[in-house]
């Protein structure tokens, strides 16, 4: 296992495709996830990016953070733009207008651009079977516009549009399960990942890159700004999310579920929740409710893996 991980690491080029000079907040795990993933995607990659933090921090005209071809069109359409690029590459290669090469189109969007406004375009692109990878950079809110709730915001979290108050617990609904929605499209490869587990991330990006059809990566990207945690703790909180079962690491290859990192015995959810400003208003009873849900979902995921 260790041996393989090191190979995965050294396989990656030293070359950076998301270079320094961008304006992400200190400790942002989202840009880290992008940077690491691009190393595995490699040079033959075209990036399509939705409006969101990553776009805004990386391309103020006339500068750019990207050494790969990169395009941003709008907030909700990264998957549709990727469809067009993939179609164009296919026909241009067929007509010998450009050399035949294995170029991967990668669409990236936040959890808002994926699970809310971009869900239709994503579903369309997955259903049509375009050969591309979609990466959801899930920081659990609309960070670019100032920490508003999305359908991927966890239950109980405080955001600027789901504030806790006399009549509100904060976010009142459970996090939408995007990976499961992607799996329902019967695509070759779906995985969850987190840059706190870089080797696991590398191996999944590699599989997503090689998929003969659409692949979907759901990447938990800790956002110190929105989660109200110290900037040096992004990696730590990513680990806690995995170790508590809040964000399990798994993959689904051609419909087969596999947990790629088992954190059992799970740590208590409280450990994950307690240091985060966005959850600081929650009482023990509310935390217990979250714990109950997490335990149930973990068992649910395990049972799906045992079905093999």
């Amino acid at each position, binding site marked *: 296992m260790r041996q393989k991980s090191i190979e995965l690491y050294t396989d990656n080029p030293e070359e950076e495709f998301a270079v320094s000079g961008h304006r992400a907040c200190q400790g942002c795990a989202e840009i880290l996830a992008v940077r690491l993933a691009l190393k595995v995607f490699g040079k033959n990659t075209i990036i399509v990016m939705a409006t969101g933090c990553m776009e805004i921090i990386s391309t103020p005209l006339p*500068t750019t953070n990207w050494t790969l071809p990169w395009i941003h069109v709008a907030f909700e359409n990264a998957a549709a733009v990727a469809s067009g690029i993939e179609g164009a590459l296919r026909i241009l290669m067929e007509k010998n207008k450009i050399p035949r090469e294995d170029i991967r189109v990668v669409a990236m969007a936040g959890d808002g651009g994926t699970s809310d406004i971009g869900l239709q375009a994503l579903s369309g692109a997955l259903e049509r079977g375009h050969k591309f990878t979609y990466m959801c950079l899930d920081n659990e809110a609309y960070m670019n516009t100032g920490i508003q709730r999305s359908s991927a915001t966890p239950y109980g979290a405080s955001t600027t549009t789901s504030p806790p108050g006399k009549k509100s617990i904060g976010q009142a609904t459970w996090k939408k399960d995007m990976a499961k929605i992607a799996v329902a499209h019967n695509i070759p490869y779906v995985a969850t990942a987190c840059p706190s587990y870089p080797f696991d991330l590398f191996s999944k990006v590699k599989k997503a890159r090689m998929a003969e059809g659409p692949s979907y990566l759901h990447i938990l990207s800790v956002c110190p700004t929105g989660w109200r945690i110290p900037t040096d703790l992004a990696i730590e909180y990513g680990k806690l999310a995995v170790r508590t079962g809040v964000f399990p690491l798994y993959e689904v290859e051609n419909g087969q579920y596999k947990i790629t990192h088992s954190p059992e015995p799970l740590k208590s959810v409280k450990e994950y929740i307690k240091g985060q400003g966005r959850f600081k208003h929650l009482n023990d009873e509310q935390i217990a409710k979250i714990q109950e849900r997490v335990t149930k979902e973990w068992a649910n995921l395990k049972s799906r893996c045992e079905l093999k």
Partner: protein
Amino acid sequence: MKKGIEVSIAASIAAKLARVEVIAAYPITPQTHIVEHLSEIVANGELDAVYINVESEHSAMSACCGSSAAGARTFTSTSAQGLELMHEILFIASGMRLPIVMATVNRALSSPLSIWGDHSDVMAARDSGWIMLFCENGQEVVDMIIMAFRIAEDRGVLLPVMVNLDGFSLSHVIEPIELPSQMMVDKFLPPYNPLYTLHPNKPVTMGAYAMPELYTEAKYAQEMAIINSKEVIKKAMDEFGKQFARQYKPVETYNTDNADFVFIALGSIGENIKTAIDELKEGGKNAGLVQLRLFRPFPSDELLSVLKDKKRIAVIERVMPAGAANGPLYQEIASLMCVHNMNVQMDNYIVGLGGRDVLPESFTDIFNGTAHEESTVPVRDKNFKVIGVRG
């Protein structure tokens, strides 16, 4: 040789003759025949193209942006609500200077729901940075689609082009149309040779954001591009005329030389106005027609030279200018007149909304001052007249 063909089918054949490489489209009445026929052409291997069955018009225009940015000749088509759903991306396509061509089959907007023709859709998109051409008949639709690619892809232009044709009254009629040969089209329209593409061999960043220090400059550059495109458009029309023996101009006229009174209109309604003009002529009266083939960039100079010695102008529009002082076409012409100190009697008539028939009589009545007209909003500064409103 001309042969009878449905205009929508002819439009799809024109796209084929232009050798489009990617089509991303979503069906909507009355555009459906165009995309249905194109998908058949692709399915039968008559055209080497990728047809992307997107799940919405928003994604159609988004996919077109992607494919055009990757260097493929790209075509789509829509109508009404479809154009509205694309609205956001229309501006991005033009701002990114992507030479996409779209046939817009003009149709009324909801609500109330109406599938029939008028210009509500295109007028709501008129300032989206697209070059806009309007067709009067099926032959023009074919010729404009072919010309549109040549204009859009010109290195001095690089802007998307919309070819407008009226829903049903043009899209669904069978007309005698001459389809040019592939050889002739190939001679007129070279393959798309993009300046920048999304390719790892030469990475570029497209669609970056601009801080306030740069946004104005970027928009100004785009504005200059569309203003300067007029010369390219005229040249394309001239060369098309030379090669295909069908001559087009940004502003077309009919019987304007001897007339003090002119109608100004867009699209297929021109044919009915011409019939009215012929009837008036038989009665010894002279009226002319000014047709804007080009609406964006606005052909100000060409219009001025036609209108300079006119006494009365009737601007005919097929859109209800909600809350505005006048219709969009009237407003443009009025501002032109104002800037050039031309004092002409100008009236604004709203006709044919949501597919309402407009017969030549309406125009003879307008000329004679006997049209049944009723302004829906009796506000003093509002001087458009809606023709044929029932009480």
